[in-house]
């Protein structure tokens, strides 16, 4: 039946028509994980008993109620920073190697309520800090398109799992590109929503003012279906935005309605950093959009070069404080035989955190320390404001922006681990969106040297419905999103 190839809508149809039970579907994907994940390492934990329990609950729901969510009974993989009650949640760190949260994240809770089945927790960069999934305490994740390459990060496990069709869909989180970059590296569609539209409650924090949960899926349509259930105001999250629309997103954009839509192409994003092959593929995809009737205009997003330093100062500053709670006292890892309190702190944190996390804590603590605060943190905040203003100015003349997701395709495992700056620069096109708090979706638009290439559609605040519609229209015309890595394209 090639279940692994099916979209969420198709899988849902099988369930609603009782051609397949959620239990059967769940077992099917658990078997795929068993068969393939040893090659990929995309899961940190798979709790089969728990998944089967949830599947039975979903089947019950499906048999009792007529009006079920399209997501009822569909298996999902959660990035291992979403708290799952009683289920191991590691955040990719030794620090939380055996941490079982006593509560569910709001996102998990919402999805469980509609009957989704959590088939496992996906691998990720430690505390979501990384662009290659190499900083995970549980080992690097492989890219299903080429096992010697990285899947991107920090939601690398989610992307790898969906790309290899081990899970029909997954959650991710995006602080500086952590949904869009791995989606792009793995040939998937990933949505980073407007800051404040998906609750952060129970999502283990990296950088509070930037973190945002979102879907990683095979298509814009699947993204929309999952986002519909993830979004919503949450009184447990003070940064949750009450302006979030309650209505479900509909994918109804027609070709005849696009002639009034103008897309901006930021010239700074198509400069020398960008791989020329990727640039060519982007141009081909822009041609497709032109044929569909979209209008294009070049725009400027100046001060682009300051984005990466500003991002790394703000994110690291917040992280240095957010991660203070891991001290060996209340939960998580505790070192053996500390001599005294200070020794407990030092040893626990030295042994419990990996290199990348320690590096960012140090950068952040430095940027906030007295005498450096104005020079680093305050300046970074000023740049953040300028970047946001630049986007707002651009949106005065255009409706949406197209941009590359990454300057390159997936790189080799180990290639950039010794060069932090090169690694950080792979986020150059994604971080501005986080600094401004805007929504953006990355879609697959082709291949360069057999590796997927992604493109971002960036919209104004709360324009998720529009950018997903544009992505969906493109995916009706093209089939890049249906490509499956050969090694995993079998039952």
């Amino acid at each position: 039946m090639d279940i692994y190839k099916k979209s969420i809508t198709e899988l849902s149809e099988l369930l609603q028509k009782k051609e397949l039970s959620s239990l059967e579907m769940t077992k099917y994907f658990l078997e795929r994980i068993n068969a393939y994940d040893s090659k990929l390492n995309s899961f940190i934990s798979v709790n089969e008993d728990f998944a089967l329990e949830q599947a039975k609950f979903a089947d019950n729901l499906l048999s009792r109620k007529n009006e079920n969510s399209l997501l009822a009974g569909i298996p999902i993989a959660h990035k291992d920073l979403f708290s799952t009650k009683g289920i191991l949640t590691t955040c990719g760190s030794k620090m939380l190697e055996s941490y079982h949260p006593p509560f569910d994240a709001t996102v998990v809770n919402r999805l469980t309520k509609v009957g989704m089945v959590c088939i496992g927790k996906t691998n990720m960069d430690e505390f979501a800090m990384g662009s290659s999934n190499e900083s995970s305490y549980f080992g690097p994740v492989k890219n299903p398109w080429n096992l010697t390459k990285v899947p991107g990060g920090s939601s690398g496990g989610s992307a790898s799992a969906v790309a290899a069709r081990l899970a029909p869909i997954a959650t991710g989180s995006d602080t500086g590109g952590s949904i869009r970059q791995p989606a792009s590296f793995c040939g998937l569609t990933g949505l980073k929503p407007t800051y404040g539209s998906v609750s952060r409650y129970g999502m283990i924090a990296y950088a509070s003012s930037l973190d945002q949960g979102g879907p990683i899926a095979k298509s814009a349509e699947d993204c929309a279906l999952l986002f519909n259930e993830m979004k919503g105001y949450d009184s447990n999250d003070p940064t949750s935005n009450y302006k979030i629309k309650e209505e479900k997103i509909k994918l109804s954009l027609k070709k005849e309605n696009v002639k009034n839509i103008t897309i901006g192409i930021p010239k700074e994003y198509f400069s020398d950093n960008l791989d020329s092959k990727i640039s060519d593929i982007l141009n081909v995809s822009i041609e497709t959009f032109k044929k569909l009737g979209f209008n294009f205009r070049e725009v400027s997003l100046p001060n682009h070069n300051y984005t990466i330093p500003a991002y790394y100062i703000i994110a690291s500053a917040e992280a240095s404080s957010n991660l203070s709670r891991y001290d060996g006292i209340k939960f998580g890892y505790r070192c053996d035989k500390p001599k005294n309190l200070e020794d407990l702190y030092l040893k626990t944190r030295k042994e419990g955190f990996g290199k990348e996390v320690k590096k960012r804590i140090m950068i952040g603590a430095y940027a906030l320390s007295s005498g450096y605060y104005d020079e680093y943190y305050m300046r970074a905040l000023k740049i953040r404001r300028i970047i946001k203003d630049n986007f707002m100015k651009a949106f005065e003349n255009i409706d949406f922006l197209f941009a590359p997701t990454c300057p390159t395709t997936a790189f080799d495992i180990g290639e950039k681990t010794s060069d932090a700056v090169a690694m950080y620069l792979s986020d150059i096109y994604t971080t501005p969106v986080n600094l401004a708090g805007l929504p953006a979706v990355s879609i697959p638009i082709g291949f360069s040297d057999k590796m997927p290439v992604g493109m971002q559609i960036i919209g104004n605040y709360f324009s998720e419905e529009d950018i997903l519609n544009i992505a969906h229209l493109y995916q009706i015309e093209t089939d890049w999103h249906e490509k499956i890595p050969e090694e995993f394209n079998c039952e």
Partner: protein
Amino acid sequence: MSKWESVIGLEIHAQLSTKSKIFSASSTLYGKDPNKQASYVDLGMPGTLPVLNKSVIKKAIQFGLAINAKIANKSIFARKNYFYPDLPKNYQISQLDSPIVEGGYIEIKDSNNQNKKINITRAHLEEDAGKSIHSNENNCTYIDLNRAGTPLLEIVSEPEIANSKEAVSYMKKIHNLVTYLDICDGNMQEGSFRCDANVSVRKIGDKNLGTRTELKNINSFKFVEKAINYEIQRQIDLLEDGKNIIQETRLYDENKDSTKSMRSKEEANDYRYFPDPDLLPIEIEEKYIMEIKNSLPELPEIKFEYYKSNYNFSEDQINIILSDIYITNFIDQAISLSKIEPKRVVNYFMSLIYSKLNKEKLKLHKSELKVEIFCLLLELIENKKITKNNFKNIIDSIWNKKNGVNEIIKSYTTDSEEDNDSVDGLIHKVISQNTKQVEEYKSGKTKIVGFFVGRVLKDAKGADPTSIKNKIIKILESV
């Protein structure tokens, strides 16, 4: 004559009396079993987020308005980063650059009994830490997070306090104000009201401030005075010996009556304050501030003068009345309800009620004693229907909720001394003799009031039935 003078600034921590914590739904009740009032948010569990308890904003604004301060239209929560086991997140949510209350002042009496203005720099909101309990017995430290996240208002004075007496006077004034506004219970033993004192000395005439030391966590008026006096003398001794004062944090040891060094400035933390990204700025509309301003009770200073010039209460009496907004309201109501002259009402209150409150450490608002009953009892005393001793017994019984108020009164009233001339006396007599009908009235049969009117009129011919009826209803409603 000493050639030295001292300069003191106080940082007072007042726990705001809210049901739940400042950023979580846990209860703030004192004295529960350790860690029974610590939620996932209080524990700083991964992924938890603070949600502001809005009632703290109102309380902070009330305080700000009462000291003539500026209320910030936009104020910001910041994180103060430092590691300590009873600080679960290892940062404290506080306010740095934009506190909710800025400026303002209060007046105290200086040593010459002259009014002196003490300016207040700021008052800001923050969360309290938990408690570490060190046990020598098994060389362990226990952590109780019940207090973690309790809302605090930190009130910072300018260094304008000249000596320990003024410091105590300032602290008492603030204590009085926060309890009067009912924003803090003022319980110093439970740590609801405590202070840090910044103390320095300089040669008289010097313009510059000397090096200061900070005395931490003093929780009684007596210790504030002693600690400051000790510290001033210690600093003077050092300076007279030609030594320098080290800027440091010191702890007052009440058993030894001395201060000892906790940590010096060099060891001090760099708190790496920055705006808390989990919390949006607090934005306060002018309209809301005005609303609170209009509902603010008349401030103690104004009431003080009023009581003194209108009723001739003694200063001690006024201080007691103004020490607790519930007592203030009780007295004001009693004065307006009772026919007895105010001075006598207050005298009765002090000797019969306040002495009990004081002796047994009770709170007036936690008792069953209603103002109407108090007034009724006063009339009974004045009319010699009960003795003062009986009055005390009645109050004790009401406090212990032994019986219905009526039965209690009845059991102490002696019929033989009945004063038949007084209609009021008759009303009370009829009410206290017919408890069954009182119960019926209470259960909703309000028509039974006619029964009481009839009984009273039988013995008070020619009296006005309407006024009798109203009086009866008033009493029946209050019992």
